[in-house]
């Protein structure tokens, strides 16, 4: 990666380890293990991988819901991995907002929509009630709701509407970056498309940078400029969406891609699934793997001999 960073968010060698249990039952979970990536301004970076691979933990560590075990993180050049101060907390909440998977659980049932969406403004010291209200109404309109919705409570809304409320709450403070953690996974097919279109419109309109976390690869591919593939706490491949799908290099990426059923009976009849078995597919007993840029913008976690093989595969 270039020394001169043109990234708005840069994560270097991030580790987030959790320990659970006590005594001899103590277990160390390396939820995020030596993860490095950067996100450019106004770019959408997709993070995919199967449940438990560390996507959510990565997002939560960036907004400092957890203290990182080790590693560096920078936002707009500023260190955001250091000791938590009032000032850093403020900086993070001003700049990065999060949208969650479950729109029901993430909204306080006792608050009206106006209170939920306007909370970010009040926390930032906006005291004028009319001004808050006007901004809330404006934001509701932007996400496809109306001002009549402002006085109601979350339970009065459908799943898709609740996710719109979650998006309005995140956007009202005009953050530079959004971390969207499975924002459409809990929604019905017909509603998913509405929310994806809304996020796309807001992204264009507000020049947002997005870290888009999901396990549906078609959605990630559609929505992201570049994609990072995670497996058991590690990033194993990073590439532009088209490159990743056209020439996947890491055997786990290949396995993941081979498993997505496509809505096409012709290709599905002949689908060949590829299995991934780290024990079988890699020999790291002598050569150790590192993250290498195999081709421009295409990074793979591999050993020197795997690198040679990948280069051949790409015709380099």
């Amino acid at each position, binding site marked *: 990666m270039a020394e001169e960073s043109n990234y708005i968010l840069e994560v270097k060698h991030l580790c987030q380890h959790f320990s659970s249990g006590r005594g001899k039952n103590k277990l160390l979970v390396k939820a995020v293990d030596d993860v490095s990536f950067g996100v450019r301004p106004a770019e959408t970076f997709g993070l995919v991988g199967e449940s438990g691979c560390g996507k959510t933990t990565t997002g939560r560590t960036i907004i400092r819901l957890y203290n990182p075990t080790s590693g560096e993180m920078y936002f707009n050049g500023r260190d955001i991995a250091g000791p938590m101060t009032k000032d850093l907390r403020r900086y993070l909440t001003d700049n990065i907002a999060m949208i969650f998977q479950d729109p029901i659980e993430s909204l306080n049932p006792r608050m009206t929509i106006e209170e939920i969406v306007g909370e970010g403004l009040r926390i930032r010291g906006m005291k004028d009630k009319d001004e808050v209200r006007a901004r809330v109404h404006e934001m509701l309109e932007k996400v496809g709701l109306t001002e009549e919705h402002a006085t109601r409570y979350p339970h009065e809304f459908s799943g898709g509407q609740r996710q719109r409320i979650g998006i309005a709450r995140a956007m009202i403070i005009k953050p530079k970056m959004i971390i969207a953690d499975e924002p459409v996974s809990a929604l019905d097919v017909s509603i998913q498309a509405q929310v994806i279109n809304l996020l796309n419109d807001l992204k264009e309109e507000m020049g947002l940078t997005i870290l888009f976390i999901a396990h549906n690869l078609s959605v990630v591919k559609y929505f992201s400029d570049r994609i990072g593939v995670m497996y058991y706490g590690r990033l194993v491949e990073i590439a532009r969406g088209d490159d990743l799908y056209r020439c996947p290099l890491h055997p786990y990426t290949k396995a993941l891609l081979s498993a*997505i059923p496509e809505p096409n009976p*012709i290709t599905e009849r002949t689908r060949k699934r590829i299995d991934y078995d780290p024990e079988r597919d890699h020999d790291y007993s002598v050569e150790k793997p590192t993250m290498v840029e195999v081709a421009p913008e295409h990074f793979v976690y591999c050993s020197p001999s795997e690198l040679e093989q990948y280069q051949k595969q790409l015709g380099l």
Partner: protein
Amino acid sequence: MAINPNETVLKVEDLRISFKAYGGMVQAVRGVSFDLKRGETVAIVGESGSGKSVSIKAIMGILAPNAVIESGRIEYDGMDLTKVSEEDFHKIRGNRIGLIFQDPLSALNPIMKIGKQITEVLHLSKKISSEEAKHRALELMHAVGIPEAERRFNQYPFQFSGGMRQRIVIAIALAGDPEILICDEPTTALDVTVQAKILELINKIKEERHLSVIFITHDLGVVANMADRVNVMYAGKIVESGTSEEIFFEPAHPYTWALLSSMPDLQTKERLLAIPGTPPNMIYPPAGDAFAARNKYAMKIDFEKEPPSFKLSDTHYASTWLLHPKAPKVDLPDVLRARIERMKGAK
């Protein structure tokens, strides 16, 4: 066993089911008809709340107590399953028709060893010794791909991963040696690589055991992977049915169009054709075509009169006024047409 592909093993006719609820009757299933032929897989696809699970719960005789079967028949082996006594259902459920749910945890007893959960079903279905039952259970565990079956036999559900649990549920469903297997979103809670393995497994045991399968899902990729024929459900009705090819390449109902074009595939670049609004409240289902309010092609009649089922081929039917000879001609949305061309060209 010789399979006669035209033999109908199960036939659902004009099934109507409502639920007594606070605020009125929820009209969950509003005149559903479909059949299952021997050896085939029929998919039922639709959004949540469209009535998929309620329809198959009626087949299994496990409807909630507040359910009312208003009308219809479910023909199976000379019986009408809507009229069968609970006692007789015991002989059908598990032994002749097996069921796999979405959530394997809720289907398993958390405090019973999984071996026992399988042998219990075996004992219920025939008189066998406990050694024989254990032997059969291990065989079943093998068949569904559980490694180290002997050791796993004595473990509890929490000691299994989600995918392995679903395999156990499949083993239990197979224990009674059914001829029909109903799968209700069996892979929705699983990761894609695990899903792929479970789908392969279901297809494999289907071939080996000559099963006929009803497969419920909301994922069109999974439909394309599994189904010989497809029923598209919306607001308690089947709005279109056809072979997999007919549904994916010659869809006729605007709701099918919307489903097919609303999600991106790996090639999609253009803006998604989202379906506006939400599905209707089934206490007050709308008159006419229930999809009309969300359908930009809807005509006046769509809001007034329920469309009949129009026949497009011997296997392809759709309920939309657009197919009426006097209706204006409406073409497939361009996005969908382009996608279908691309799909047909893929190999």
